[in-house]
């Protein structure tokens, strides 16, 4: 495999990782807020904050890793996406900044106010919406280059059904993934009242999740035929994704094997996300940049891959330690530590 392919493969895995961990985080924020306004916060907010406290910075790193990595492996992306994403990217940064810092101010600082809960819940939905713009742009047709000046066609972006369907998909996916994880987490903690509530959320958001995915797929077929057709060639991946979706829904409905349900939802998104990504190949930004013509020098590519392997050797043991101490420490999950 060439270093460009290793690069994009690794980056895509990290983006998938961010999709999962950030979804859990963002969705949890929304559920916490929802529980507060419907006066059910005593049931689940303890559970949510126990999970989130040790990991929020780790979530952020997945995101930073992705955008630093993509500029490293494919410097051309900085030129096109950098210019086009100035506004949506800045908005996403501001929302992330508000979310991250308020989180620290409230949790390490003082008691939780409703204003904070609102911001926490609202940013949980707005951040995925603003980040999803990057995926929409990659489909082409929204960025033009004239006389060496790159600009974003805002009118086209805001009137495109594709862009709104991707926004909708990102939001409902966040809620579905998050609720499924929280169901698993509550069952591990043997917190039955919380389990009952978050399982209800998970079941509720399952149907919109699959509908939004299909809608986005249909709009994609109208917007970027080539991408749509390459995805159809990967029909077995999409089929597996739908299959795992049905497995997840069934497991949630049965009310047993919540761990399996969460694994199943992760697999559902693995196949959907990689089906989408492989179908997009070779374009990083249709039609301006491909994986090959935008790649960095070979020496840099090799250095980055080497650094990546070294980094993983350092991080994986550390992450295992973190998980051992918090996520999989039964006493901690149950709130005894």
């Amino acid at each position, binding site marked *: 495999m060439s270093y460009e392919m290793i690069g994009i493969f690794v980056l895509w895995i990290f983006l998938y990782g961010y999709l999962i961990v950030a979804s859990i985080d963002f969705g949890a924020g929304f559920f916490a807020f929802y529980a507060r306004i419907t006066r059910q916060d005593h049931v689940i907010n303890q559970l949510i904050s126990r999970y989130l406290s040790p990991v929020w910075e780790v979530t952020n790193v997945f995101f930073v890793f992705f955008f630093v990595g993509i500029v490293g492996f494919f410097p051309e992306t900085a030129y096109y996406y*950098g210019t086009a994403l100035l506004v949506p990217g800045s908005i996403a940064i501001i929302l992330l900044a*508000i979310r991250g810092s308020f989180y620290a*101010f409230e949790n390490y600082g003082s008691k939780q106010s409703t204003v904070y809960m609102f911001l926490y819940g609202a940013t949980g939905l707005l951040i995925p919406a603003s980040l999803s713009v990057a995926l929409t742009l990659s489909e082409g047709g929204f960025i033009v280059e004239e006389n060496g000046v*790159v600009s974003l066609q805002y009118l086209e972006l805001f009137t495109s059904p594709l862009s709104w369907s991707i926004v909708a998909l990102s939001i409902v996916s966040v809620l579905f993934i998050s609720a499924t994880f929280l169901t698993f987490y509550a069952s591990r903690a043997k917190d039955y009242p919380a389990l009952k509530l978050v399982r209800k959320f998970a079941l509720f958001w399952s149907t919109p999740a699959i509908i939004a995915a299909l809608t986005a797929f249909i709009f994609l077929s109208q917007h970027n035929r080539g991408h749509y057709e390459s995805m159809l060639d990967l029909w077995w991946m999409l089929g597996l994704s739908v299959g795992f979706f049905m497995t997840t829904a069934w497991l949630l409905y049965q009310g047993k094997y919540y761990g399996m349900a969460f694994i199943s939802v992760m697999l559902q998104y693995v196949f959907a996300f990689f089906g989408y990504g492989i179908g997009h190949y070779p374009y990083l930004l249709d039609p301006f940049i491909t994986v090959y013509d935008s790649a960095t020098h070979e020496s840099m590519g090799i250095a980055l891959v080497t650094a990546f392997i070294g980094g993983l050797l350092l991080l994986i043991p550390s992450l295992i330690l973190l998980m051992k*101490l918090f996520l999989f420490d039964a006493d901690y999950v149950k709130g005894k530590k």
Partner: protein
Amino acid sequence: MELDTVLMSRLLTAMTLGFHIIFATLGVGVPLMISIAELIGIKKNDPHYRLLARRWTRGFVITVAVGVVTGTAIGLQLSLVWPNFMQVAGNVISLPLFMEVFAFFFEAIFLGIYLYTWDRFNNQYIHWVFSLPIIIGGGFSAVFITTVNAFMNTPDGFTTENGTFAAVNPIAAMLNPATPTKVFHVLTSAYLTCAAILAAITAFMILKKKTTDYHKKALKLTLTLTFIFAVLTAIAGDSSAKFLAVHQPEKLAAAEWHFETEEGADLLLFGWLNDAHEAVGEIRIPNFLSFLAYGDFNAEVTGLEETPEDKWPPLWVHYMFDLMVTIGFLLPGVALLYFILSKLKKRNEHNKGMLSLIVLSGPLAMLAIEFGWIYAEEGRQPWIIRGYMTVEEAATSSPYIGLMFVLFLALYIVLGTLCVVTLRKLFRDNPAEEELEKHYPSFEKDDES
């Protein structure tokens, strides 16, 4: 219009960096102070020091959060505001940016562990060991980012072919000529600043009539560290000046208003320039610039005349340089004065004047960091990659940059205010005396003095 976009891009980046550098500096330096305090606490079996580590950590996580979000902001802004720079530089210098993420990841993981495991292990050294990866991660984050900045000053590790970079050697780019002195200077000054700020906070508490053993021990520790790191920072600053004299002479010359190449050059402090580019009202130390630059009072120092005038850095960087250096000499002086007073039997080292000086030295140290970075960045102008790309060529063409400036300004005002409010509330609602009793009830109450 085009110039406006460039100016707004520069202002936005300057604002983000000026704000981020405060929290980045704390993020690099404070873990070392925490770790030292905890180690002393365990070694001496003295709950005061361990409480110190605990309380510093609690404040630290708030500043880390702001550091994380502003760091994310500057990381993305590099691509959003300077797309042409990242497109070119990404080819050569993305390796340390990439590794910085790992260093930070490493730090974040262990900060999480350190924060939530204070009383979880019977062997207290286990908890202390978790502070080491935080120090190492924070330190290496600074090292990696500083190599990128060093590269912008003395680009290396590539050849140019038809205007694009070729034959890239990422390691050579990282280890460019500016890297060693810059890294040394950034690290020591971060440790110095954090020690000075923690000393200032402690002195402030003592001024507010909290003269407990806990606070006295904290003051002595932080001032000792201030002194040690101030000496190291002075050495680092000196080696930075010697580096500039050889590799980036126009930057040193601009800081010193040194226009003509000459032997036995004088050092100029403050003053102002008249229309004929002559310094007026300055303090002049004969032959000292030659000594600073080469360790030889008669060495020849390159003047600005050897750089075309349109490539001169702005001459006001002179003040930034002077202020930074002045503060750099003031800080160890204050710490030294405290120790002299404490050795003299008749004098009270906790008198109002002394404490006020210490309180002042905290913000001054942080200001010196700001001045130093302004000097470092402005002194490189008009280049973004010295000799290859100017800031004007690098900036975004997007017309919305002014609007983004306003949005980010609002964000930083909110973050800065809330950070201060939260920190004050955190410590006011939770005084050290109460906490000592809560965590270490068996510790005898010999606290009041």
